[in-house]
């Protein structure tokens, strides 16, 4: 394994020397951000390679307003909130699900557990916090479909699933963006297929390389990006051949399309992006918790001084935010970049040397 690493590093060094300028690579996916930090990869890269951490952490792009809706629903004793653990510590405007200490908030490992909760508690309404990109969306679609088939009407979904490609395009349309290439999310790609990134290459001429989350995967992915940049031949390539195919998982895509349709949504820091979210189709509207409870997600105001938006676009690094490490820490998070275990700021805080930036 070490040999492959040396090879990739040698390639990166070579390319950096040849190009003679800074190379900005955006890892879109929060799990990549964390993997890069946990393995200390940044420190091993040539100084001319800069990693930008993009908005691919679904917790990061989940508005405080969404949490506020969930907290409000948790006040209703006839409701059971079923959520992945990731959402428990995300701050709403006034506290988080964890701090609420409600007996009716249950952490689940799978959407199927949430549906089971509904079946086991016929007197209550389960609200499943459905967050995540295309990797997680099919799991929600499966249980919505099942609930419809079995008539489990006390099951609802507070959907906030998002689509990765519109966000990637929006980033490339941002005026001051510095993105030279994308390290594409391995597991989203298992669902959507590596061919999904072809339009990005065609329209924006940026390399799109799909990698998994093991350190060697990331390093090989970065090496491949450098190779493409040196040859000025951007293309879609996957180094995650163990699981990613060009077409992706057709069954999963079909199930998503059966239950969801694209809708516009607001992303923290990026504003409104067209067709960037999944909304339940009309025939499944009765499972939509927003509709069932007559609630709307009010876009919460960004806290003054919170620069999560610029961080999510890769325009600044966490230490450039005045609140970083001072008023905003993992124990006292202000914005989602610090709250999420995958958030750029949380990763910097936890893994990078105190007082020094990671590069």
């Amino acid at each position, binding site marked *: 394994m*070490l040999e492959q*690493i040396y090879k990739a590093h040698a390639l990166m060094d070579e390319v950096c020397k040849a190009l003679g300028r800074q190379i900005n690579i955006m890892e879109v996916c*929060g*799990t990549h951000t964390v993997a890069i*930090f*946990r*393995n*200390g*990869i*940044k*420190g*091993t890269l040539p100084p001319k390679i800069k990693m930008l951490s993009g908005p691919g*952490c*679904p*917790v990061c792009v989940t508005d405080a307003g969404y949490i506020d809706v969930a907290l409000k629903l948790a006040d209703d004793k006839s409701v059971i909130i079923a959520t*992945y*653990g*990731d959402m*428990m*510590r995300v701050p709403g405007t006034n506290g988080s699900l*964890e701090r609420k200490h409600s007996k009716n908030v*249950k*952490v*689940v*490992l799978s959407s199927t557990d949430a549906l089971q909760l509904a079946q086991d508690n016929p007197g209550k309404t389960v609200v499943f916090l459905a967050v*995540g990109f295309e990797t*997680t969306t099919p799991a929600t679609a499966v249980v919505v479909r099942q609930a419809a088939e079995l008539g489990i009407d006390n099951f609802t979904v507070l959907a906030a699933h998002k689509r990765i490609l519109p966000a990637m395009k929006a980033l490339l349309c941002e005026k001051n963006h510095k993105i030279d290439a994308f390290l594409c999310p391995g597991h989203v790609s298992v669902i959507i297929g590596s061919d999904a990134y072809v339009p990005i290459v065609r329209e924006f001429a940026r390399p799109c390389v799909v990698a998994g989350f093991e*350190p*060697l995967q990331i*390093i090989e992915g970065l090496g491949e990006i450098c190779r493409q940049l040196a040859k000025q031949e951007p293309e879609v390539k996957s180094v995650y051949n163990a699981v990613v195919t060009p077409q992706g998982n057709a069954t999963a895509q079909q199930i998503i399309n059966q239950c969801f349709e694209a809708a516009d949504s607001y992303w923290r820091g990026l504003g409104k992006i067209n067709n960037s979210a999944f909304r339940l189709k009309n025939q499944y509207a009765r499972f939509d918790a927003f509709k069932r409870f007559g609630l709307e997600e009010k876009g919460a105001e960004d806290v003054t001084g919170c620069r999560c938006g610029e961080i999510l676009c890769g325009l600044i690094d966490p230490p450039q935010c005045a609140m970083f490490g001072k008023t905003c820490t*993992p*124990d006292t998070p202000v914005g989602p970049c610090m709250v*999420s*275990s*995958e958030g750029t700021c949380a990763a910097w*805080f*936890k*893994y*990078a*040397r*105190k*007082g*020094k930036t990671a590069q």
Partner: protein
Amino acid sequence: MTTNAVDKILLAHGGGGRLTDQLIRHNILPKLKNDILAELADAAKLELSSSSVCFSTDSYVVKPLFFNGGDIGKLAVCGTINDLAVAGAKPAVLGLALIIEEGFEFRLLEKILESAADTAKQNNVPIVAGDTKVVETGAADKIFINTAGVGTRLPGVDLGFDKIALGDKLIINGTIGDHGMAIICQREDIKFQSDLESDCAAVAELVCKILESIAGVKFMRDPTRGGLAATLNEIVIASGHSIEITEADIPVKPTAQAAADVLGFDILNVANEGKFVAVVSPESAENILSLCRNHPLGKDAQIIGSVVRTADAPVVELITRIGGRRIVQMPYGHELPRIC
């Protein structure tokens, strides 16, 4: 009517009257079997081999009560024995206090007592004092246990944060994360089957052997809640020194790592109940490592790192498998399963 005809604990069993008396005489004493306890005095009279002692106490609220590799009774005894040992003392006696929820099944109480008794006996540490209280349904979660212990300080052994110095090595006696991951997969909401077993064990014998035969141990601690990460951070904060550890040298069972990966946990933050971290002089490290490896509770021992120069603030830094570096932070204190 003897208590054996009853299958659940009643409030009266903690009331200090006839039922309490029966519980103690018929169920507790016969298992814990020692002369001091049999006196049923208000306090145990002790003749210790030294007046220089260590004292420790801990409470146990683990769920589930019974898990692969042990139960709350064994845990309660091992936990306090280990705390005494890593402080440099030979455990001498234990106290055992039970707080039981009304309605708790008798046969489960018997099993727990037997387990505590067996563990105490195997380690030659009699339980010489005890107490039993019963609270109403809902006022406690089945059973809570407190153990307290006294140990005699080993002569010539003086462990402390202030003894830690630049260049010292860190040794762990085996694989990390086994207990925490074994427990978590038996929790109601998580529920998966695993080959994993808790590493719950009393390491006092091994620890005392090390301390009595090899000079050079500066400090020891058992990495329980918060895992190795918490213990290393505690050492760094208290000693003012920085620590550097090497990921590839930290022993982890593949099953434990995979279980952590499934849930999105950091194995460094996961509890251990049969492990100790020792900070030792560089000259003594290899000998201590050998001694560990020749003992059943230390066969997977490794030197995992060393005490290093501090740059700006004392930190725990990890050298990753690919040669990168990252800081190991003090854990939050409660790991939540993640999907992202």
